């Protein structure tokens, strides 16, 4: 591959005593061209499904079922989106998804911060047991305890409620680990100085640790928001009424099953765009935090 020829050449220059400024030189010419071409191709392949979904969401029914398929946007965007919005009660669906995503993320961050704070800054009897109990939740995803969790929620009277949708999502071993790791990097001197000044633990958490943690909180929040928005099995189980449904589940009603329905894929795709836009926008806008959150939680 020519790309590496160029890289090797610049490396050789450097090895022969080339200036340090040569180090970050970008390779040019054929090699770079091939790499860019392959990268653009990969981006195109990865982006195609979303592009196609968008294209379909702008077409009329007639255009959707035409052969050969039309791969460019058309003019029917507005009617499709309006139809999707009204038919699936989109306002309610998006509101519910938003509540689940925000409340579960905020709740997770809060209770994880508190428990990590207790584990790092206190010695107490049963500390290792508490840590162990939190850790083991990693091994108990919803899917392995479905029937029994449903029972618990039922007994609490939390079916079809926001409490049922959000509270059980709030325990997070990964978030607790992240804060624990972070608190451990905070220099001891800070705690000692605070103690000398008579600062109590809660005030220390609020006035010292919290301001230092914003980057971690933002990163974690992005990841947890997406996790909450995209929950499926959990809301599927514990909500039965249309008013409590989240958007990822609400889409299903619009799928035209073969034979029985008019193939209104354009309306379905319009609804799908609405369901995926918020989390995708969060990733795009907060990309830096998102990558940090992903890599540091290692969930």
């Amino acid at each position: 591959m020519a790309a590496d020829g160029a890289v090797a050449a610049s490396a050789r220059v450097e090895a022969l005593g080339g200036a340090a400024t040569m180090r970050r030189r970008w390779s040019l010419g054929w090699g770079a061209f091939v790499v860019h071409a392959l990268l653009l191709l990969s981006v195109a392949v990865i982006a195609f499904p979303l592009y196609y979904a968008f294209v379909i969401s702008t077409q009329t029914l007639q255009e959707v079922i035409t052969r050969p398929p039309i791969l460019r946007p058309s003019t029917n965007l507005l009617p499709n989106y309006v139809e999707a919005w009204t038919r699936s009660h989109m306002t309610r669906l998006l509101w519910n998804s938003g509540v689940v995503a925000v409340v579960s993320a905020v709740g997770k961050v809060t209770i994880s911060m508190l428990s990590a704070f207790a584990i790092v800054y206190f010695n107490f009897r049963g500390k290792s047991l508490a840590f162990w109990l939190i850790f083991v939740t990693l091994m108990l995803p919803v899917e392995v305890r479905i029937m029994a969790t449903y029972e618990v929620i039922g007994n609490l009277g939390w079916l079809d409620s926001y409490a049922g949708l959000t509270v059980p999502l709030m325990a997070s071993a990964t978030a607790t680990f992240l804060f624990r790791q972070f608190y451990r990097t905070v220099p001891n001197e800070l705690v000692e100085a605070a103690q000398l000044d008579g600062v109590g633990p809660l005030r220390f958490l609020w006035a010292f640790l919290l301001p230092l943690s914003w980057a971690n909180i933002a990163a974690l929040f992005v990841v947890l928001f997406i996790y909450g928005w995209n929950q499926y099995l959990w809301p599927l189980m514990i909500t039965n009424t249309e008013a409590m449904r989240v958007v990822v589940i609400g889409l299903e009603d619009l799928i035209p099953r073969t034979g029985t329905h008019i193939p209104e894929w354009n309306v379905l795709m319009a609804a799908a765009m609405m369901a995926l836009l918020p989390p995708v926008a969060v990733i795009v806008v907060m990309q830096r935090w998102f990558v940090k959150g992903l890599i540091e939680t290692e969930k």
Partner: protein
Amino acid sequence: MKRAVFKNRRLPYLLVLPQLAVTLAFFFWPAFESLRLSFFRTSPFGDKRLFIGLDNFRKLVVDPEYYRSILNSFVFASGVTALALGTGLFVAALATQKVRGLAMYRAAVLWPYGIAPPVAGIIFLFIFHPSYGVLPYWLSFVTAYEFNWLLKGWVAMALVVVATAWTHVGYNIAFFLAGLLAIPASVLEAASVDGAGPVRRFRSIVFPLLSPITFYLLVVNMIFAFFGAFGVIHAVTQGGPSRATEIMVFKAYKDGFIGLNLGSSAAQSVVLMVVVIVLTALQFRFVEKRVTY
């Protein structure tokens, strides 16, 4: 390092209380209940229970449909993992080839992670649609074979695998990029001075240095495909056609929620619990290793 601590008798308990309450109520208690239910036969409405020992498990062991779901799970999980890891490594390796625009390319491939697997499934459902979809149309130029997922099990499997892998490839790219950028440029340059070509460099330097991350991602992708992908199956294929995409998690859900066979569903949950425990233990071996350096 010894840490400075605060002295307070009650406060630490109050601080861990919310986390522990949620954990005990919604994780431990249900897991324990699942375990207990798996030894009982329960009437569909839960009013009568009969202890039957290991009978639920015994029935699973002789149930060909259960074996089918195990096989499906492995086909599904390996398919998703191979596709998402392979593509992820390919794109990440390209993007770190000292070309301009790394950040831009990363932004351009990361976003599918925000798409819920069931939503991705719905998009691919149309792409694979036997009469209107673009994929069967393109393939019809190459072969007369009919790619109809409603009739052919493997096409349905391919559909859910591709849709699931699509949502996860950005995650893998993010990790591979972090790993690749951490490899010191001087090592690679030294190797090329010694005449190692690109393939050789990748095989003898990059890949071994990347192997802890690859292993970690392998496990995470498997866990994701085993458990996180329930929504794709439920929204798109419902396990069909004729159980070709019925993975273990979906069967446990179906037998419990729809079939109301609570004992069998609980026994299946217990088997799944063993699967996660093994996978998580593997994952932590990696994390421990990383912590040491």
